[in-house]
């Protein structure tokens, strides 16, 4: 089985690729349009430089060759949502070609090319007699990433896509809802002939569509049938693919060079652009540099690149073991909350430093971290904690027999907890009380 993907990613420019219309969601159909994106006679496309920069960034991320000059082409076909009757895309000298991308730091996937192009509009069926066309989307900048047929299983294609999306998001600061703007055409051949499943969105659906095709094609071949070369669609609800059109020959788009845009000398621009380290590359580096296992490193970056960076800061502030166990534990568990409340990561480093210098205990560090990462004031917490400690110590002082009982039976700790809870009237969480009690007992047991 051979699988190749063509991944379409919407670039996060504020205006369209060849005009100044906004790319944001419009309130009504055909409101974010102008003569240029409607293809009125006499208009000329004007390139959005930002889109070229994004293209170069992605080409670099995929380790592509970037040419000194690139140009655009016109792809001609008739469809109501194509305002100009031609789509401006790249055919020769695309923004990147011959790239390579490693899945999970291991198997290489070859990138055939990465090209820039504009999105067409949208057609909507309206009743059974009419269709409505909305050109708001027409001219939105896209990149298309084309892979060689290197995938061996649907799961591998999915894993590639997951990683790719995370990397793209980080490299060009794609907004979090960006997944809806990522669509893939999935090419799969079990026998000789290739079938293309168009426009599948979402990781899960890519795997489902490919798996369905694998089963369908295998059955046909086993029954002695022949796979027809065709384009298929994917029905998300039923999880099946269906035939859209037979492809007896390659569609002929009659490409010519886009004469209105000319040639772009992008060599210098490409050399001047540096990209952020992608999550994938970072995970590989973390595992090698700090000798931690790949899985943990992957977990760090897939939770957040910020968390992975935190780990690196902590390694410098303390040592690998301390940094590792705390990053894996409390810090990673509370990371999303922490990112949401927007506090300075420096505070976390301070707490861990205090811990490694022996100024606070593990339990105290844990409490402080949780409080700090939840956005609560660490000082106030410490005072509160002081109160809690006092209450616990006071009770233990007054009931020394309970310490002995706990030595014999751990469950006896519940009596302490019950008492403190009653005393504090639900002011502290039972988890906090438990950890504080254990901390207090440490000194007595």
């Amino acid at each position, binding site marked *: 089985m051979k699988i190749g993907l063509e991944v379409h990613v919407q670039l996060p420019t504020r205006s369209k690729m060849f005009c100044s219309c906004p790319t944001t969601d419009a309130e009504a159909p055909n409101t974010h349009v102008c003569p240029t994106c409607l293809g009125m006679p006499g208009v*000329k496309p004007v390139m959005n430089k930002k889109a070229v920069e994004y293209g170069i960034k992605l080409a670099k991320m995929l380790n592509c060759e970037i040419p000194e000059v690139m140009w655009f082409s016109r792809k*001609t076909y008739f469809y109501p949502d194509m305002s100009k009757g031609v789509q401006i895309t790249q055919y020769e000298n695309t923004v990147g070609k011959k790239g390579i991308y490693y899945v999970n730091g291991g198997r290489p996937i070859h990138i055939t090319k990465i090209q820039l192009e504009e999105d067409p509009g949208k057609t909507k069926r309206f009743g059974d007699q009419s269709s409505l066309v909305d050109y708001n989307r027409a001219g939105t900048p896209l990149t298309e990433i084309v892979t060689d047929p290197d995938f061996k299983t649907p799961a591998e294609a999915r894993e590639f896509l997951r990683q790719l999306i995370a990397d793209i998001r980080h490299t060009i600061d794609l907004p979090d809802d960006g997944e809806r703007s990522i669509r893939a055409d999935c090419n799969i051949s079990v026998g000789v002939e290739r079938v293309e499943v168009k426009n599948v969105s979402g990781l899960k659906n890519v795997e489902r569509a490919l798996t369905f095709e694998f089963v369908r094609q295998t059955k046909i071949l086993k029954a002695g049938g022949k796979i027809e070369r065709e384009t298929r669609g994917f029905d998300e609800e039923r999880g099946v693919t269906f035939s859209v059109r037979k492809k007896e020959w390659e569609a002929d788009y009659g490409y010519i060079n886009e004469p209105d845009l000319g040639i772009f000398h992008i060599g210098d621009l490409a050399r001047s652009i540096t990209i952020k380290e992608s999550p994938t590359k970072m995970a590989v580096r973390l595992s090698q540099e700090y000798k931690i296992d790949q899985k943990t490193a992957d977990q760090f970056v897939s939770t957040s690149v910020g968390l992975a960076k935190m780990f690196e800061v902590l390694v410098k502030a303390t040592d690998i073991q301390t940094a590792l166990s705390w990053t894996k534990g409390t810090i990673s568990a509370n990371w999303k909350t922490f990112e949401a409340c927007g506090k300075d990561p420096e505070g976390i480093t301070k707490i861990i430093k205090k811990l490694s210098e022996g100024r606070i205990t593990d339990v105290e560090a844990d409490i402080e971290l949780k409080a700090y990462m939840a956005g609560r004031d660490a000082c106030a917490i410490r005072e509160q904690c002081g109160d809690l400690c006092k209450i616990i110590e006071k009770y233990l002082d007054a009931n020394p027999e309970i310490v002995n009982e706990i030595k014999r039976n751990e469950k006896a700790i519940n009596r302490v907890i019950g008492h403190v809870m009653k005393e504090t009237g639900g002011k502290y969480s039972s988890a906090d009380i438990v950890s504080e009690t254990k901390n207090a007992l440490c000194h007595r047991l």
Partner: protein
Amino acid sequence: MKDLLAKLSKLNDKYSMFTTITADKDAGDSKFLFSAKDGLTSKDMETKCGSRILEGYRPVFDATAIAKMREAGGKLIGKTNMDEFGFGSFSTNSPFGVPKNPYDLERSCGGSSGGAACAASVIEYHVALGVSTGGSVCCPASFCGVYGLVPTYGRVSRYGVIDNGNSLDKVGLLSSCPFQIAKFLPIISGKDPKDPTSCCQPELEIKGKKIKSVAVPENALDGLSKDVRSGFNASLDTLRGMGIDVEMITMPSLKYAIPAYYIIETSEASTNLASYVGMRYGRQDGDLSLKFDDYFNYFRTEYFGDETKRRIILGTYARMAGLRDRYYSKSLRVRLHIISSYKEILKEHDAVLTPTMPFVSPRFDEISNMSPVESYSADRLTVPPNLTGMPHMSVPCGYDGNGMPMGMQIVTDHWQEDRLLTFAKEWGAVFDVRRPEVPL
């Protein structure tokens, strides 16, 4: 000026040079009047580009050249008639009447800016905006006995030019007075953010740089009509008399220009024409319950003219997979070859000179007997400079026995419009332009 607006529609009845004329009979506070070929979009006037498919289309924007003329105080008096989408050499491929040659109403004005040349010939000191793709300014200028200038590709913004062949289209100027052209070219020139192919060269400077030597490619003179040959020879003598050095040369590359041109032009044009499907502008009729491809087919079959359909088919063929390398891509290489052959000659000479058209304006009955190949090869002298993007100009240079005008075409290197304009003024001083007789 006032006078002209009042009699414009009467003049037009006689010559059919405009497809739309202004309803204003008052020039208002405008400083000058001008006309524009209907292939340039105009905000307040219908723009049809010579095609039924665009009937009723009122663009929401002015072409940059028109906008700049208006900013300079000009008033647009009308849109001039043309071959459909610029496809033709005689302005006979127009469904909106055919402009008539002011020297003989039975003859063509040339194309595709035929209406523009007619207006420039009939109206004194008038300046007309035209568009040239393969000769659409020089050919009608020659047939109508006026000056026609095509600037360097990119000198004038193409924003608002309804595309024929985008890599070839250039806005040009026509007038019976060379000083008018020199005056208005700087006005319409310059970088335009709305057209990425508009120039980033220094502004046009007119410093009076002269043409001191011209090269005449001898092989371009084969097949000239007798009258044009003798008129042209007489002009060469006049040039020598002006102190200009005339040298006969050969330029074998010229013979490849026509095939390369028609492949590039039709390839580009056929993609431009893909947007005309009756959905968003211009004419919209037909059975809307049809499937979209059937509707598109119906619409395009019904409203494109024959020549337009011919070029769509030629262009689509030339860029098809499997043929693309042999035709489209090869033509692009031929084009580079032709550019370098001009560059080579222009190292030694200031300009390349030929007649503009191989014959004077033909009669309409002669045109209807021409095959497409015959009419395409009529452009064999105007096509080469258009392919190179070099500035060139047709100046009136003689009259045949019937009093029909002929022109010669001067080509200089890129961005050297200055030399052309200076030459035109000097030529205007020595050559006596005969104006046609205009009634009223």
